[in-house]
């Protein structure tokens, strides 16, 4: 019994070593994933953000064709980095709607002039209400809503150039 126990501290050290080494080699995923993926899009209705472009309601989705729902803001730097990819998606026929977080109409209008306008509709979510009802925790985030109005995917952070092809494939699969 005593003989076996003498190895116990070394064994515990080994276990601790493996745990810490595993944590160092594979850094923790700190992004917060929405648990609404694979669930229906919650009902919402948002006022228009800029003149000449409609606001956004949940009834815009689930009309037979998949759409992207982009959560963005004019004050968000990664949203500028993401803009060319959204324009590329638009050029490939992907319909994109948006909700703008904590923002004002003129600021959004200036953002769209500078970075391009890939959006069919933009809703004014000044108090993050709809963002919270989607389980989204930051900007930018993009949700893929299928033709039946279900959230099928959440892309956290700015969409990179190498994600565009995958998103077009995801869109085709979500029909």
């Amino acid at each position, binding site marked *: 019994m005593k003989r076996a126990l003498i190895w116990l501290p070394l064994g515990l050290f080994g276990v601790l070593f493996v745990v810490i080494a595993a944590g160092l080699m594979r850094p923790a995923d700190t992004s917060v994933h929405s*648990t609404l993926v694979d669930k229906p899009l919650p009902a919402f209705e948002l006022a228009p953000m800029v003149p000449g472009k409609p606001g956004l309601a949940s009834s815009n989705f689930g009309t037979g064709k998949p759409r992207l729902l982009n959560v963005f803001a004019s004050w968000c730097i990664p949203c500028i980095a993401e803009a060319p990819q959204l324009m590329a998606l638009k050029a490939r026929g992907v319909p994109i709607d948006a909700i703008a977080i904590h923002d004002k109409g003129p600021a959004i209008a200036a953002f769209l002039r500078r970075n391009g306008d890939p959006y069919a509709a933009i809703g004014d979510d000044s108090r993050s209400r709809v963002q919270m009802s989607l389980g989204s925790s930051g900007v930018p985030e993009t949700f893929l809503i299928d033709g039946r109005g279900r959230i099928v995917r959440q892309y956290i952070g700015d969409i990179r150039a190498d994600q565009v092809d995958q998103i077009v494939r995801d869109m085709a699969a979500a029909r």
Partner: protein
Amino acid sequence: MSLSLALLLAAGTAAPDYGNTQLPDPRAEAQARALMGELRCVVCQGQSIADSDADMAADMRALVRQRIARGESPEAIRYWLIERYGDYVSYDPPLSGATALLWTTPILLLALGAWIARSSFRKRR
């Protein structure tokens, strides 16, 4: 008298920014506070929404206060958020397979201590 007048006046004006304004009813505010201390700010992650200065935390506080003022129970609000962000959003995690150790570890350690104490007392005899 002046207090009730102030309350009446407050009720008459537009809804204040509940992210940074207390509810007029102290009991409702106490309920909201207790819940805000147990909800995680999803942007800052290491802080509760009561402690955080982030815009998103203010929006979450406003959501909590508005729903409490509407008569929703704190547990219903917590559940609404867990439905969207997962157990992660609550600092009071529900008992499940993954969290069972949080509750059972103290009992297991006590049992281990009792077992060690018993064997060492035996040796002395």
